[in-house]
């Protein structure tokens, strides 16, 4: 059985939730595997992150270097290409850093690449069977990944339920193995997202509209409904991309994380990046004209209607 490695994402030494999820995924590949956590960083941060990782993994490899202070995918890729065996199985979170790192790493290691995996069915010899989603979550697919020459997998955040039970792993300082990690891409700075005039993260009730709103002129219909409900208007990403509402209204992984009591998802399909911004198990009402929209799998109440008819009718009834 191939060796399994997990890339640990951390911020300032605090390990990300994905670290525990990757540990669960690794056990689905091989219940008996001794998985090695890879922690890169600099100074006190990397030590703290190693401590966090050692609670989840039997072995932790520490890579400490000033150039690793901020995770630059090109630098991390060079490092991993040098230190990992070519036939290993490498697990990486499918977040914005993982998406930047993993495809190129798979090429450099000459490994198979299975992106955005949401489930692992197990191994049959060297062939791993995984579950993915296609067409914006509207179709699930079983996919085989030949791991004979190694494999890199990115795992969708939130897809693997972390288990309780603490490990006390050992940390090995591998910093001496760091070779040439100069990069053609240099990190400059992080520009924080702008804050808008409303704070959707504080609202108890959100009237959230997606591409189903169809036209900028229809935003007013949602505003009227929100007013009648005493709610705040939020939205999915395409509405912000089209500049119909400002960025500070966007719910999702690249927008705001919200914790309302009630979430009205109107003409929103329910992509994982959108749902990733919904926390605290709100009561979700989904209105969508497609009865097969993925949002109905996570909503509490579903209504199959055209939102452009439904919203005004609901507003009228309330006023």
């Amino acid at each position, binding site marked *: 059985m191939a060796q399994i490695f997990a890339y640990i994402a951390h911020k300032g030494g605090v390990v990300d939730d994905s670290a525990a999820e990757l540990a669960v995924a690794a056990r689905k590949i091989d219940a008996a595997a001794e998985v090695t956590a890879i922690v890169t960083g600099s100074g006190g941060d990397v030590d703290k992150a190693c401590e966090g990782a050692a609670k989840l993994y039997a072995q932790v490899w520490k890579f400490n270097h000033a150039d690793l202070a901020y995770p630059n995918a090109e630098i991390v890729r060079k490092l991993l290409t040098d230190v990992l065996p070519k036939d290993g199985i490498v697990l990486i979170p499918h977040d914005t850093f993982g998406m930047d790192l993993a495809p*190129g790493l798979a090429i450099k290691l000459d490994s*198979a690449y299975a992106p955005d995996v949401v489930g692992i069915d197990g191994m049959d010899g060297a062939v791993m069977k995984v579950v993915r989603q*296609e067409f914006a979550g*509207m179709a699930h*697919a*079983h996919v085989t990944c030949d791991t004979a020459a190694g494999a890199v997998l990115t795992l969708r955040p939130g897809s693997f339920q972390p288990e309780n039970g603490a490990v006390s792993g050992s940390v090995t300082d591998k910093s001496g193995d760091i070779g040439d990690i100069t990069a053609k891409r240099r990190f400059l700075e992080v520009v924080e997202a702008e804050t808008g005039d409303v704070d959707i993260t504080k609202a108890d009730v959100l009237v959230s509209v997606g591409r189903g709103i169809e036209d900028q002129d229809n935003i007013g219909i949602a505003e009227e409904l929100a007013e009648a409900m005493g709610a705040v208007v939020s939205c999915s*990403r395409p509405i912000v991309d089209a500049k119909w509402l400002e960025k500070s209204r966007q719910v999702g992984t690249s927008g*705001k994380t919200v914790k309302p009591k009630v979430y009205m998802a109107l003409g929103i399909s329910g992509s994982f990046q959108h749902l990733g911004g919904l926390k605290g198990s709100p009561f979700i009402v989904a209105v969508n004209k497609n009865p*097969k929209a993925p949002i109905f799998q996570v909503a509490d109440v579903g209504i199959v209607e055209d939102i452009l008819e439904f919203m005004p009718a609901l507003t009228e009834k309330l006023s």
Partner: protein
Amino acid sequence: MEILVCVKRVPDTAENEIEIKGDGTDIERDDLVYSVNEWDNYATEEAIQIRDNVGGSVTVVTVGDDEAEEVLRRQMAMGADKGILLSDDAFEGSDGRGIATILKAIVKKGSYDLILTGAQADDGAAQVGGMLAAMLDLPYASLVNKVDVGSGKTIKVGREIEGGNQEMSEIELPCVLSIQTGINEPRYVGIRGIRKVASVEIPTHGAGDLGLSADSVGTGAARVKRVDYFTPEMGAGAEILEGSIEEKIDKLIELLKAKGGLK
């Protein structure tokens, strides 16, 4: 600046209900509406704007069947200068690595300063750009939502990271960037624009022209393969409200009152 934009023809998920065939081998494709992958429109628009600012040319390329030509024409109607179709039976069944291998071959035939892809396409893989860059040994940035081209050998790019924050980097040319939606406002293409480019010659290359051996692309080379599509066993799922629109509204108001959704 010579710019290559990789584009893909995909079923339009905003227009279609995706149905899985009874035997799970494919989705029902008969009545599907196809379009250019959403992210690729932003990539093409960005390329056109860069060319209009600093000069050069924009070439759009796709790996696909004969019908894929229509997306090239559409991007040319937007303003791309050239289109290239990469098509061969031997390409069928390629995994992401296979597609990147084919694209690498066409990149090698030209001389590009900047290669753009979309951040992801219909199977949500977000892989081809990063793979292509690594194969070409070029620097790469994914999820790019800002490109600043100056006159030097480096450009400044912004990447979208969690929470909508933006990571700014400096990257050497030539490079590969995968473009995120929202970076610009892709221009509208009307029927007339498409008609204008309807008779423009679009060169097609197969495996032979590209110097690709059959065992480096297609089903045979694929290490990642789809077995089937399936409908997952759903959890409880939503309680679907039935009846007339008035009945649904009455029921919903009751529920909202109980859950604190109405003031």
